[in-house]
């Protein structure tokens, strides 16, 4: 159905309705289409009038649809009228209508009304983050930064995650404004990005840069740059924070891995207490290792070679610098088979320590344990992203720690590019990829909006800001 272009008389609506396939839902479908086609508001009004005259009442969902149309076209006075009608008609409204009202009013010059609505919502439910978003944006658009920040903190206190848009709005609208408190609040947002390992996108980064440069008397200068592998900023030659965890974080992570990943709800699910104990004594007798290898994962590197040849290559490649290696595998690798030749296995066992888990145990958990137990210098080799193990960790903070540790300690193997070369070692990142500051410099990693970013990938581009 195509909504009409001009308001219709009741009779005409009746005729349209009768020509419609299922007249029972005619009005509903018509309103939906009107919202979709963004029909003139008068058309919707004429239909509402028709409905009101024939029923003496307008159902709630029609009003909401009409409201959506008004919001879409920014008709502030209509929105208020609808709100008044709804308010007298119904005791409370539901979230859909509230969302529309807040969104519609916050974009108009009656934006303060949206704030009172927000208070009203709070009485019956927790406002959604988009409610807060609209109000915050409206407040900051009208330069009421204190109010905006108040709402922002309230939102965080309710465990709502702000969108990048809101954060960007803060930077956009406080450009050129003075005030130590304001500056502190905005630094607070940058630290929020740091704590939650959020990377701003390009336009957001630009807002941050412009804000810094606009601070009156601040003398900030921003540059876009790439950080070298060594972790030194080429612009200000500042050394970025390294990726090592602190002693406390490290111990915390190790304990959580043992508790949540290896034991979990039931130790028998991934291994068995006897086996884990045996592994613990094995590691304690021989550690520290320098590199821990996930044998089975590495053995599938190149499909044309047999599995034990692959593993042999890897061990040879990594054993060069007198490093102490630990290879984790499963017991079936010891059985002489076409994939696992006994003599090659023997030879490898001279170069590295081996631990063979039961065939139904999970070797990844052992990999994590052995690496963490060996200390901060120890790295591990696997192509696995270890997402399932990360998911076992119970809280967000530990998951962040895990990611950070993984970035610093996992050596992954690139196969596609270097198919012929034996074994390419991709260096683990030496510096930590988060927003960081020293007081007179800020370094902010950002992602190109178009670049796809996976959770294991970190941006390589940085914004360097320094105070002259």
């Amino acid at each position, binding site marked *: 159905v195509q909504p009409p272009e001009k*308001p219709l008389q009741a009779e005409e609506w009746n005729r349209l309705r009768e020509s419609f396939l299922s007249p029972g839902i005619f009005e509903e479908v018509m309103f939906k289409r009107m919202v979709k086609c963004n029909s003139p508001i008068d058309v919707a009004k004429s239909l509402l009038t028709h409905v009101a005259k024939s029923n003496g*009442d307008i159902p709630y969902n029609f009003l909401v649809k009409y409201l959506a149309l008004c919001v879409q076209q920014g008709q502030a006075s209509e929105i208020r009228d609808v709100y008044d009608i709804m308010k007298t008609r*119904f005791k409370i409204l539901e979230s859909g209508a509230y969302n529309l009202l807040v969104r519609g009013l916050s974009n108009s010059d009656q934006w303060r009304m949206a704030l009172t609505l927000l208070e009203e919502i709070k009485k019956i439910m927790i406002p959604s983050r988009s409610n807060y978003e609209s109000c915050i944006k409206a407040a900051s658009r009208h330069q009421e930064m204190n109010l905006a920040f108040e709402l922002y903190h309230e939102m965080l206190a309710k465990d709502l995650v702000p969108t990048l848009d809101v954060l960007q709005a803060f930077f956009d609208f406080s450009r050129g404004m003075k005030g130590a408190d304001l500056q502190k609040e905005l630094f607070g947002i940058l630290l929020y990005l740091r704590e939650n390992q959020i990377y701003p996108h390009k336009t957001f980064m630009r807002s941050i840069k412009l804000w810094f440069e606009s601070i009156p008397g601040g003398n900030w200068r921003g540059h876009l740059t790439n950080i070298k592998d060594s972790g030194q900023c080429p612009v200000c030659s500042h050394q970025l924070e390294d990726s090592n965890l602190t002693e406390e974080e490290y111990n915390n992570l190790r304990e959580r891995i043992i508790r949540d990943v290896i034991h979990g709800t039931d130790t028998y699910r991934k291994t068995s207490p006897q086996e884990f104990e045996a592994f613990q004594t094995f590691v304690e007798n021989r550690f520290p290792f320098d590199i821990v290898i996930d044998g089975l994962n590495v053995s599938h590197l190149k499909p044309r070679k047999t599995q034990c040849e692959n593993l042999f290559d890897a061990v040879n490649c990594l054993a060069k610098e007198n490093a102490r290696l630990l290879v984790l595998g499963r017991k079936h690798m010891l059985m002489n088979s076409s994939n696992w030749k006994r003599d090659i296995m023997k030879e490898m066992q001279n170069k590295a320590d081996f631990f063979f888990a039961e065939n139904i145990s999970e070797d990844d958990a052992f990999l994590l344990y052995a690496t963490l137990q060996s200390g901060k210098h120890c790295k591990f080799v696997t192509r696995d992203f270890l997402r399932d193990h990360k998911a076992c960790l119970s809280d967000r903070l530990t998951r962040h720690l895990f990611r950070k540790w993984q970035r610093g300690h996992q050596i992954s193997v690139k196969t596609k590019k270097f198919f012929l070369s034996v074994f390419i070692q991709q260096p683990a990142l030496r510096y930590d990829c988060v927003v960081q500051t020293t007081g007179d410099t800020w370094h902010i990693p950002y992602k190109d909006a178009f670049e796809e970013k996976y959770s294991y990938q970190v941006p390589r581009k940085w914004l360097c800001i320094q105070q002259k």
Partner: protein
Amino acid sequence: MQSANVLLKKIMRSSVLPFAAQHGMKKDLLPLARTLSVSLCLKQDNSCSPSEKLDLDAWKKVMKSGLQEEDSKMVPEREELSAMAAAREILEMWRLAGRLVPENISEEQLKTFMECPSKSAKKKYLKYLHLKELYKKNDKRKMDEKRERKMETQEQASKTDETKRNSFICLWASGMDKAYSWRVAQSMVFGQPLVFDMSYEKDMSVREVANTVRQIVLSEGCNRRSVDPFHIHFCNFKDDSLYHEEFLKHYKEAWGKLLITVTDRCYTDVFPKDKLIYLTADSPKVMKTFDHDKIYIVGSMVDKSIKTGVSLARAKRLGLETAALPLEKYLLWNTGAKNLTLDQMMHILLTLKDTGDWKKALEFVPKRKYCGFVSKPVHELKKTLNLIDMLKLGKRHEEVRKQFAKNYSKKLRQK
């Protein structure tokens, strides 16, 4: 034509019609006037702007006017609402807004709704209740229709006055019941035990427990009706558990008369350990034949969020032998998890017990989960699979082949 239009417009403006429309006198309009207005609209040709005579804000007046009387009544109610009443109020608004919300909701359901931890959990719960209500309504409607039809046929029958002659008294149902009970009673003495392990309550949500019990009730039913039933044991069954509560809901007073063994002891205490085999989809061992001397254990667990290795862990802890159904050996698996429902398991085990025919038994695996049966040896199967993939996926086939090879080697490794 144009002059005619102008004339009509003039008539429209000066006529009583808009006046009548404005004052809600629609009902008083004579049929004559109605036809006149239709023809007028038709002839307008959209050339005049209708807003001149169409009061677009009339609906507001209607909405506001109807309320003056109601308003005074509503004010006292407006004050403080209890949490329950407020929740009910919100639900009502959601229903008006066209969301999937049940029309009637009981106190208990409302409480569960309010205890839902998140917005999406609330939404899901409401949708579930809504669908439940819908099914119930449909069933009721169908029942009513059926009853009506029956009444009609009865009436007709009484009219024609045709009496049926039959040598048996119609006592099928109770007769069958007796025969079944006799058989199950026999199996309680001589039959092969089958254990349901009822120790997974803490691994499941309330709804999962309810589903589990439903599935067990179904399995018990099909066991009762089979030629040679199992002797069903519920082991690790606690009397005050959720399981128990749900069973009572299903069986009511029949729970006490059920021909099964219910015990709070573990199967390892009841049976010799070397005879027990724990059936779990995670088992590395694949069942080859059905052994009539063994006692099979089925974990009474529905895991909607696929928790791998829970039942395998239990068997490992107790040091029991485990086995998985040879699904991959006999079926070209398509989609879906390899864990089957308890009643499907029961059907499969009963069929195996009676015939030992895997093909027949695995008919009970849901059809959507597999493409077909396998009759050829494995390496030939691999070729066909490749062919299928090639046809299905065209270019991507190389990739798929690799994937398959990888999976396959994993499988071989585990054997």
